[in-house]
């Protein structure tokens, strides 16, 4: 039995407009990893991929698949799922072997499981004390909102690029009204920015820094090194990149 400290918990009912119209209750917990032994327990539990979950504590891969499928079917796999779990109350008739995709994201169940393992290993190795807050989790956008977010980003980024690409001033680029609006979109836009950075490297470093309050790039790094550094940062944070 895992001994998890639960500083926060909440629940939320989701009603999905899918073919099966499944309703389920999602219970999300955050917890602290306090000792190496507990890390081992968690990893061991997670790797029991055939586990059937009836209780409230499970790292069964099928639940993670289901959560991803149900929550959006289109959502980038977020880091927090490695430490959260759900209690299904509705019928679970989702094909766990299905693959799902959206504009930016395509992943099979096996890759997802592999990702979960990496997330947990990374958490254990880095001695993460606490995962994202439950409020952060609940603030994540639903699929339709995410699509709108992508469209809004595209609209703002296109105009920003058009109006600043001939300028040399980094300050004028990064204080352009459209650039600031993208920053104001908050953490939800980070995967979209990273995807854009991967496809077409541009001046997104300041935006990523402002939104995440992190700076993984050493001073003196080249532009290419900064691009790679931020993409690696994104991978460590659990953002899928195709």
């Amino acid at each position, binding site marked *: 039995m895992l001994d998890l400290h639960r500083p926060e918990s909440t629940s939320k009912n989701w009603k999905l407009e899918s073919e099966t119209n499944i309703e389920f209750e999602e219970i999300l917990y955050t917890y602290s990893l306090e000792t190496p032994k507990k890390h081992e327990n968690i990893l061991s539990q997670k790797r029991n991929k055939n586990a059937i979950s009836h209780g409230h504590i499970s790292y069964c891969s099928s639940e993670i698949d289901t959560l991803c499928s149900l929550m959006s079917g289109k959502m980038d796999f977020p880091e927090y799922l490695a430490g959260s779990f759900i209690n299904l109350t509705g019928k679970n008739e989702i094909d766990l072997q299905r693959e799902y995709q959206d504009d930016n994201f395509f992943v099979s169940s096996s890759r997802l499981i592999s990702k979960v393992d990496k997330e947990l290993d990374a958490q254990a190795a880095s001695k993460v004390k606490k995962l994202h807050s439950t409020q952060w989790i609940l603030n994540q956008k639903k699929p339709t909102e995410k699509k709108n977010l992508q469209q809004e980003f595209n609209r703002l980024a296109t105009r920003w690029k058009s109006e600043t690409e001939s300028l*040399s001033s*980094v300050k004028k680029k990064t204080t352009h009204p459209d650039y600031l609006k993208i920053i104001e979109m908050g953490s939800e836009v980070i995967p979209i920015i990273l995807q854009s950075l991967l496809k077409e490297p541009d001046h997104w470093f300041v935006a990523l820094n402002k939104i995440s309050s992190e700076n993984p790039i050493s001073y003196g790094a080249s532009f*290419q090194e900064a691009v790679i550094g931020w993409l690696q940062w994104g991978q460590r944070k659990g953002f899928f990149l195709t």
Partner: protein
Amino acid sequence: MSEQLIHLELRYSSLSSNYYKKTSNRTSEYNCVAYSADDLDRPWWPVPYQAPYYWPIENKEEDESLDEFIEAFSFLGFACCNDGNLEKGFRKIAIFLDEDGMPAHMAKQLPDGNWSSKCGDLEDIEHALQSLQGKPSAKEGYGDIIKFMKIAN
């Protein structure tokens, strides 16, 4: 005939009536200031942002003035001079000032007396000095007034 860069001519109309020639494809990896300092790996600008943005001297106050540019390039060995004429034994750089008197662009002199610029995140071009000279508000060029500095070859 060299490739015509319509997107640049629309932004800087002085180009359409003066000499220029494309010398590289567009990239965001460096800007005109870095290019003038022969650094093609990172953009230079006097802002205390994180890497890859670079400035050769400490700049805690986000000073983007001409004095700041002169101080930075003096640190690299350049000295102010009066004009952009070709001078034997020296290489020159030009700092274009916008209508507010703030640096907006830099170019470096080529051995034949022509100039070479990186246009923001767009192409590098070889050009006459006046090809990028003009009022930014009128979409003529990067700036009317140009300050020059030189360094011994």
